[in-house]
């Protein structure tokens, strides 16, 4: 298959996925339990009288029948309007739009840090002949993967932020503010990158051309950089898209702790306020980000390793 055809096919799959995700979002909008008008009126702690409630429902257009609401919703989404938040009364597109970049920043920084750490350590482990290194790093990986990220975050805040005062505890704006949340988020993806790198490198090491290189007396690092890494790169690159999705999911907990003004903090509020337009918008946007990431990953994988095309779904 030509690269163009492959590209088109993947793009088509990505588009279909998006359509399905948006349909799911609409179902979400209408399946919610709890009266959003009431919750909005009660957010200040006062209970509204029945009159006020009725009036507010009317004002929000919540009184029209579901199919009517449905058509309106679809119309709006097609025009790039994700609807209006019930709690905040602001357009969902604005609420989430101003929060996409902080979340993306966190996600991309984490992706970079965890991939770098995972690949470097993974190569070290794979090449290491001392059983101690292998055992130590791999046990650390097992434990790290078992740590809830919020526990890591709390530890980092206390140790690095409060005790040592090296970096700000919380907030947004400067590169220093990125350090703690990225560290807390990186542990789990770094651990799985490490595992993946290790097994990819090990399987390449077992192949004939490496043995040939070794028998020629090349230095280990030359073998690693020239011969092993390029061959081991394909599965690593292929996993980036998925990993990015996992990182985005992880931001939900981390943003709350570090007062990071990303989408997650908005969606948590939305969930407890049954603010379904915001929830749906969040799923739609995050889904899109992940789909785009997967698409790009597939593309790069295809460029790096043409064999993928043959085995592609």
């Amino acid at each position, binding site marked *: 298959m030509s690269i163009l055809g492959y590209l088109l096919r993947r793009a088509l*799959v990505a588009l*279909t*996925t998006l359509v*399905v*995700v948006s349909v*799911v979002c609409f179902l*979400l909008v209408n*399946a*919610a*339990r*709890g009266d959003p008008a009431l919750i909005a009126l009660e957010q200040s702690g006062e209970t509204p009288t029945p009159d006020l409630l009725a009036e507010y429902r009317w004002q929000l257009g919540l009184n029209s029948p579901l199919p009517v609401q449905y058509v309106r919703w679809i119309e709006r989404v097609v025009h790039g309007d994700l609807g209006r938040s019930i709690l905040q009364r602001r357009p969902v597109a604005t609420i989430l739009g101003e929060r996409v970049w902080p979340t993306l920043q966190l996600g991309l920084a984490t992706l970079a840090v965890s991939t770098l750490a995972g690949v470097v350590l993974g190569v070290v482990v794979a090449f290491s002949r001392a059983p101690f290194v292998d055992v130590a790093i791999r046990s650390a990986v*097992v*434990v790290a*993967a*078992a*740590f*809830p*990220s*919020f*526990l890591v975050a*709390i530890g980092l805040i*206390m140790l690095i932020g409060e005790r040592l005062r090296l970096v700000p505890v919380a907030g947004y704006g400067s590169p220093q503010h990125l350090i703690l949340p990225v560290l807390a988020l990186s542990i789990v993806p770094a651990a799985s990158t490490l595992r993946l790198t290790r097994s990819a490198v*090990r399987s390449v090491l077992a192949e004939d051309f490496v043995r040939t290189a070794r028998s020629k007396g090349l230095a280990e690092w030359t073998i690693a950089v020239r011969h092993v890494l390029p061959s081991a790169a394909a*599965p690593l690159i*292929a*996993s980036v898209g*998925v990993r990015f*999705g*996992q990182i*985005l*999911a*992880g931001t*939900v*907990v981390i943003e*709350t702790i570090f007062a990071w003004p990303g989408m997650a903090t908005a*969606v*948590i509020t*939305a*969930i*407890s306020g*049954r603010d*379904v337009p915001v*929830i749906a918008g*969040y*799923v739609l946007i*995050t*889904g899109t980000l*992940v*789909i785009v990431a*997967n698409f790009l990953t597939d593309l790069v994988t295809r460029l790096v390793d043409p064999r993928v095309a043959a085995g592609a*779904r």
Partner: protein
Amino acid sequence: MVKVVLGHPGSSRPRLFRRAAPILCFVLCLTLVLAAPQIAPTDPNEVSMPRRLMAPNPSAFLGTDQLGRDVLSRILHGGQAAMITVLVAVAGSTALSTSVGILAGARGGLVDRVLCAVLDLLLAVPGLLVALAILGTLGTGRLAVIVALIGASWAEEARIVRSLVATLRSSALIEAAHALGAPAWRIGVVHVLPATLPTVVVLATLNLGQALLTVSSLSFLGLGTQPPSADWGTMLAESRAYLGAAPWLMVAPGACIVGFAVLANLVGDVLQGQADPRQRGR
């Protein structure tokens, strides 16, 4: 998507029972928390103001919390709550993913293509997000959390089972069964299901640890299951405010969550090593 190849399971089931240490340990822990009501020294919800915030001591091995409740009893009962949620969710997810995986893999053709497309779509959205979306719609509560956990993990497992079954389909045994005219459901249940079992068990075990971490994260966000006797995640989240005054409140549930997740991963790895003969030599 990443392809996961799990080798040829079913080839050596007796070896499953070797290197049993992590498994024994795991089973012991499970028994402990499931038998919590019998072992726990006191009622986990008994409030006693004079005994509040006591450090670990002979009368309360893990100390007491802000309401004077015995932490050890709460850990045991809370473990039970967490475990039931996690086990039910994993069982549900495994059942769903195995059936869909076998259906897609064994039938092939159009069914396979459609199911695969659906699975790929679901895989595009990370598990925790699916869980959040479900919770946002259903509201929280144990049932909602279970549904959310299933929603978060089943697609990935189904994909793995499906690719396994697809490789089995062309195996001699199944082709022979087809040739003898056995009905499809019979082939599925008698031949395919047992062959996938080792893989499914490995997946389920690995999923246990992951599910517990997800539940803990949800509890931390205030979206978890919250029966009167707190589960570990809730205990951990609550203990945060007392970190300075009563650090033992955080240590106990924290160690339990991490310990359980480590154990579940170890057991999964051991089982996987057994299931995949190619792994054994290394």
